[in-house]
């Protein structure tokens, strides 16, 4: 039994956690849910001993938990892998037997472990640098499995997994549960939570607002607890009128054949989604369009201009949101204001004061949780960072949006806000091309859904009518 008593922690003026208490019995899965910035990651980090609470304490089987006794293992929201080590070494990092060890033996153990989890295809001997992000996510989970810790904390472990991989993870969680582990699970996907969790704790602004068995809550209950108000329309879809064509790609082939011979048109007033498995090349498609990857053959025409650089794109009101927040999505050392104003064209002079005041406008409009526009972005929760990345496009007055997994890591409430923003933009006459691994959202807001499969755009469906089975079938054929 894991117990938390009155945990509180403040980062300066931000109260990340306030007097949170709960208990998680062995053999059950406890879901921790809440909006972005509600304190979920902070809570998990405290439980894992990575952060010290300013008040309260954590007990495991009625003993105070000391950091470093390996009872608790945290799988981080932001991946914590060493790209220069092999997959096997990453799994056993910090537990590699010493002083001498045999890489071959370690790889065998890792392979056995991964196979046991249902992922025999992950190469244990290769450098982690070259693995796709989904496989890297699995490695993090394998690390928890390898330690065999009685308490396992999973912070948004599914954020970059495919449907199939998610299923394997659920199976794994069930196995662990059966073995009597205590599992805490953070996710923004309600259906996922229903699938694996037994109990639920809901946080809002660092305060526990509800807890109980998952079966006792309806989706609407959960959302109401999270955002503090009633939400009726998950996927707003106003009447949109399709206008002129803003983006045309023809037989586009990029480096590594990603994408391969892709053709697509996106018009004003429509949202086009791209579905597909991990590694299908959706990211590459968007990055190639935006001029971040080389075009091997074929054409990209944006507003009748060909092969523009990122700078030229921003200047012609085309904006891009990257999927890897930490890498190139946002600049975490810069302030909120600097991040928002960076892409917008300006003259020779930079006016920080002006930037702050316009940033404040977007902070209010999108409901970004932060102290002030000068706060460095690294202090914001993941979802709020994502909103800042989105605010850039609005500030630069873009009419063509290229959004790569725009809702990754965003809570339900914020997602709904983001959908509303996208819908409003489309209604204004903006064109949106977005990728997502979350089919319901594509079906909910897209006018058309293209499916990508190993670099090819294999089919385009009507977003309103297509069902998930068709989309899945196209993805894996």
């Amino acid at each position: 039994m894991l117990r938390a008593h009155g945990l509180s922690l403040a980062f300066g003026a931000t109260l990340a956690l306030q007097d949170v208490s709960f208990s998680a019995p062995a053999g059950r899965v406890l879901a921790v849910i809440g909006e972005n910035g509600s304190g979920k990651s902070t809570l998990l980090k405290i439980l894992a001993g990575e952060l010290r609470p300013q008040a309260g304490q954590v007990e495991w089987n009625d003993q105070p938990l000391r950091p470093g006794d390996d009872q608790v293992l945290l799988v981080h929201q932001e991946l914590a892998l060493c790209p220069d080590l092999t997959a096997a070494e990453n799994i056993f990092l910090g537990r590699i037997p010493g002083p001498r060890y045999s890489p071959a033996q370690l790889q065998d153990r890792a392979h056995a472990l991964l196979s046991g989890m249902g992922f025999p295809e992950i190469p244990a001997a290769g450098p982690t640098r070259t693995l796709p992000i989904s496989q890297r996510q699995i490695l993090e989970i394998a690390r928890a499995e390898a330690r065999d810790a009685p308490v396992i904390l999973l912070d948004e472990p599914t954020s970059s997994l495919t449907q199939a991989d998610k299923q394997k993870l659920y199976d794994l969680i069930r196995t662990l549960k059966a073995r009597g582990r205590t599992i805490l699970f953070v996710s923004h996907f309600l259906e996922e939570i229903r699938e694996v969790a037994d109990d639920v704790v809901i946080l809002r602004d660092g305060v526990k607002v509800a807890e109980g068995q998952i079966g006792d809550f309806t989706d609407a209950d959960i959302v109401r607890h999270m955002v503090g108000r009633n939400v009726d329309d998950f996927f707003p879809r106003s009447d949109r009128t399709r206008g002129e064509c803003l983006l045309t790609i023809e037989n586009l082939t990029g480096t590594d054949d990603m994408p391969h011979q892709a053709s697509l048109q996106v018009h004003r007033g429509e949202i086009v989604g791209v579905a597909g498995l991990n590694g299908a090349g959706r990211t590459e498609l968007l990055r190639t369009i935006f001029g971040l990857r080389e075009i091997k053959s074929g054409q990209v025409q944006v507003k009748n201009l060909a092969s523009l650089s990122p700078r030229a794109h921003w200047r012609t009101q085309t904006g891009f949101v990257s999927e890897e927040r930490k890498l190139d999505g946002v600049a975490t050392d810069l302030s909120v204001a600097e991040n928002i104003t960076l892409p917008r064209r300006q003259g020779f002079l930079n006016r920080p004061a002006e930037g702050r005041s316009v940033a404040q406008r977007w902070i209010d409009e999108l409901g970004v949780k932060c102290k002030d526009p000068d706060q460095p972005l690294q202090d914001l929760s993941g979802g709020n960072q994502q909103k800042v990345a989105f605010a850039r496009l609005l500030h630069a007055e873009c009419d063509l949006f290229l959004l790569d997994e725009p809702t990754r890591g965003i809570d339900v409430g914020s997602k709904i806000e983001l959908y509303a923003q996208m819908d409003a933009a489309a209604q204004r006459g903006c064109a949106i091309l977005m990728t997502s691994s979350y089919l319901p959202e594509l079906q909910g807001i897209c006018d058309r859904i293209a499916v990508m499969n190993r670099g090819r755009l294999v089919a385009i469906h009507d977003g309103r009518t297509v069902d998930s089975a068709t989309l899945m079938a196209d993805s894996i054929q």
Partner: protein
Amino acid sequence: MKKDHSLPILIGAWILIYLAFAVAKPGVFFSLSNVEQLVRQSLVIGLGALGITYIIVAGGIDLSAGSVVALATVTGAMTLDQTGSVGAAIGACLLTGLVCGLLNGVLITRLGAGPFIVTLVSMLALRGVAKGISGEKPVYPEAPQWIGQLTGALTAENRWMIIPPGGWIWVVCTAAFAWALRYTTFGRNVVAIGSNEAAARVCGVQVNRVKVATYALGGAMFGLAGLMLLSRTRTGDMSSAMGAELSMIAAAVIGGASLSGGQGNLVGASVGALVMATINMGCNTVGLSNWVQEILTGVIILVAVAVDRLRARQLSVAG
């Protein structure tokens, strides 16, 4: 850009060090001519520190600064010698610096080999060039008087200037550079690149161009520093300014620059140069041995940096 608030502490520390020496040598340290001299002695490192701060803020480093300074003294002296024109000599120094900086910048962005190793190479090679074009001999130009006056002692009728013209150039450059980092788009882009290069690229910042511009700007400052050195020694000397890059980097770091990029303070860098010159001057007049002075300088830099980091840490905890 955070950190600006540690500047008062740094200035306080500088005054403290100054006073400490003043107690030991009141006659020397409480005089206007001493301030003049301090400026004169920190000028070369100070100007270079401005250039290197920009490079550091952009996430780079330049180990070739000292060699560029030396090369600039050589080309400046040779131009002065051959044309007799001070204007041409000034142009030669600045141009030399600019070209070297451009070269560094282009190599770094094209090769993708990292600034440390590229500028390490140019540190070696540019000094070779300086030796080559000077025929391995110092160049003694027939110097028209006023190139010397740029950094020379003030005459009685020039007393009103307080510090020599070169010093005023430094003051103006410090102000201009500090302003530009904060209030121009270029400066903002430099900070963005140093903070997160990939994100800056996604946001449409022309990363390579800005980087090259930063190295070129830095190079021009090293050229200017070379001009000041030429004015001070009236010699084009290929073996001068050896290791000066390290002093410049130290000044920038004392001033608040972070070698991981994205942070730097121009005024701080100039004060950093003054701090080091004060220690040097103090140890000199008090008559300490060189080895004591070396250890002392090291310890003071370390303390400055440690205090700064400590404050930064407390700050990030306290909010």
